[in-house]
């Protein structure tokens, strides 16, 4: 009788666990919706609940967060979404990611790439750079944001300390564009240029300018930056 009782309890426990998983998976679609709708409070709550229910952090990222940010990017490209929507979705994604980062690090999960991003020396503008950083993070990249007015040497140092394989440079002003060239040259002088792909962006920047200064790519907006980073990252050696 004791073994039968144990078996019944085991079956009940299995059913409950299965039910909980099903409920959890159903709730997880709310994470996708929260990011898509730019609801950071909901994104945070759903993520916490999912983790408490034992959901694998990698599953949350791969099956819900990256697809949500990909959809945000698609809507931006098709002009259903605009800058405010990108900012809201990026913030919601970060709210979810804040709960996951330590867990992902513990699992040793590999990101899509390791990015060092910053606005170049002499330039204090950061909206575009922040959008690119958020979209890259939402695209599964590990992003180190060096901020604004970043000296070339700081990019050089961060490439080593963060094991980066991608460097993203932003500039809004015509007078600060030359700092992109200076930064690329500093990477060469420091012997780290071959370890990374360099992509650039910003209002006055063009694909032609990227070519002129020896960068590997140019993106005209934050959404396209993710596609470019994925392409370049697949070419670049992961450190």
């Amino acid at each position: 009788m004791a073994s039968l009782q144990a078996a019944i309890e085991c079956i009940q426990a299995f059913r409950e666990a299965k039910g909980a998983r099903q409920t959890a998976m159903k709730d997880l679609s709310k994470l996708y919706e929260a990011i898509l709708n730019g609801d950071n409070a909901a994104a945070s709550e759903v993520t916490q609940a999912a983790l408490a229910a034992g959901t694998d952090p990698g599953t949350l990222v791969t099956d819900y967060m990256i697809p949500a940010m990909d959809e945000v990017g698609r809507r931006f490209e098709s002009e259903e979404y605009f800058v405010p929507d990108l900012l809201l979705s990026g913030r919601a994604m970060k709210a979810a990611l804040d709960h996951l980062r330590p867990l992902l690090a513990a699992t040793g999960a590999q990101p899509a790439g390791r990015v060092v991003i910053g606005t170049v020396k002499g330039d204090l503008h950061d909206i575009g750079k922040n959008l690119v950083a958020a979209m890259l993070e939402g695209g599964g990249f590990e992003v180190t944001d060096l901020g604004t007015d970043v000296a070339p040497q700081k990019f050089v140092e961060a490439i080593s300390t963060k094991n980066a394989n991608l460097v993203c440079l932003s500039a809004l002003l015509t007078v600060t564009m030359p700092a992109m060239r200076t930064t690329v040259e500093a990477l060469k002088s420091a012997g780290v240029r071959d370890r990374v792909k360099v992509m650039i962006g910003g209002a006055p920047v063009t694909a032609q300018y990227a070519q002129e200064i020896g960068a590997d790519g140019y993106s005209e907006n934050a959404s396209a930056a993710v596609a470019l980073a994925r392409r370049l990252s697949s070419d670049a050696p992961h450190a």
Partner: protein
Amino acid sequence: MASITASRRDVVLSALHHAEGSRVPIDFGSTAVTGIHASCVAALRKHYSLEKRPVKIHEPFQMLGLVEEDLQNAMGIDVTGVFARKTMFGIAIDAGWKPWKFNGLEVLVPQDFNVTLTPNGDTLIYPEGDMSVPPSGRMPQGGYFFDAIIRQKPIEDSKLNPEDNLEEFTPASEQDIAWLAKSAKAACATGRAVIAGFGGTALGDIALVPAPFLKDPKGIRDVAEWYMSTRSRRGYIHKIFERQCEVAIGNLRRIHAAVSNDVDAVFTCGTDFGTQTSAFCSVSTFRELYFPYYKQVNDWIHRNTTWKIFKHSCGSVERFIDSFIESGFDILNPVQCSATGMDAEHLKERYGGRIVFWGGGVDTQKVLPFGTPVEIREQVLRRCEVFSKHGGFVFCSIHNVQACTPVGNIVAMINAVHEFNGVPAGSH
């Protein structure tokens, strides 16, 4: 070509009324979006062998230099500006000038322009020149412009009060109105057309949101937070705009009584709706969130004054132009032809009879700073040809002439407009 003996003001007014036959009028320096960086003003003064004197920085945020009458004459400029009494940093420009050295250049700054240097060489500037409060602007070491320091207090949605974002929208002081009246009278006496920026009518201009002119800004002052709020806190933004318009119309009534017809056009709003390739919002959002307030202010101006209304918006804004026109704007600036959908021929053909293009003359992101004089001449001549048909065009570069633009390029640009106008060198 029209007679070059017509007064400068008449030439501009013809263009603003889409009249045939006018030569192309020229503006540089009349507004904070058609200006010239102080370093370039200094270079131009030297080029034209004008009296050696330091350039006055009348707009310290973008470090714009005052284009004084001798330089206006040398360049053949047809428009002059009336500026609000206080700058972007809340510093009065009627309290005298003092010397300051900027990247090796001797300039004059308003008396209350007070700055400090950080250990890494950045320059910090203080609202109203009050150094007892935190700075509101920063220029990086070796930089050419200030940028606002974001002073955002933590936001609790339940405690957000639109009044906090309305601190800067108050009835104009008697001192402000007297300044505008005096400035407008002096500007009118030059014989040039006069455009005025009175302030208080820009709806959510992102350069103004951080309020670098306030000592202790409250409400939503972070740039990203403001953009997000246009979607997530739309009711809050509506309340700000509603009250702002009430105050603005009250001020316009009093200002009009003081300046009357000394002013020909008013620069009312510099809110950018375009990016390089897209927009900051949809047309439907524009019509729901901005259009009613623009219409309210513009209708008042058209009913009560003879002023033409000047709207600045960078970027790809073709999709908004019908709405700009419907809301009562008469003039579009800077006409960023390099942005998506902003092809000069298309704009002129589709909208040229209904809105004046004040700008679009030459690209300032690539051609003017980095092109050759030959490339600049070609673009200027082509843009003049396209935009000047049937009037409706005031020549200006696409936004301010940026720092580090070679003076030879600026002169090539100006000479090309005079060449188009058939005006012999030196006779404008």
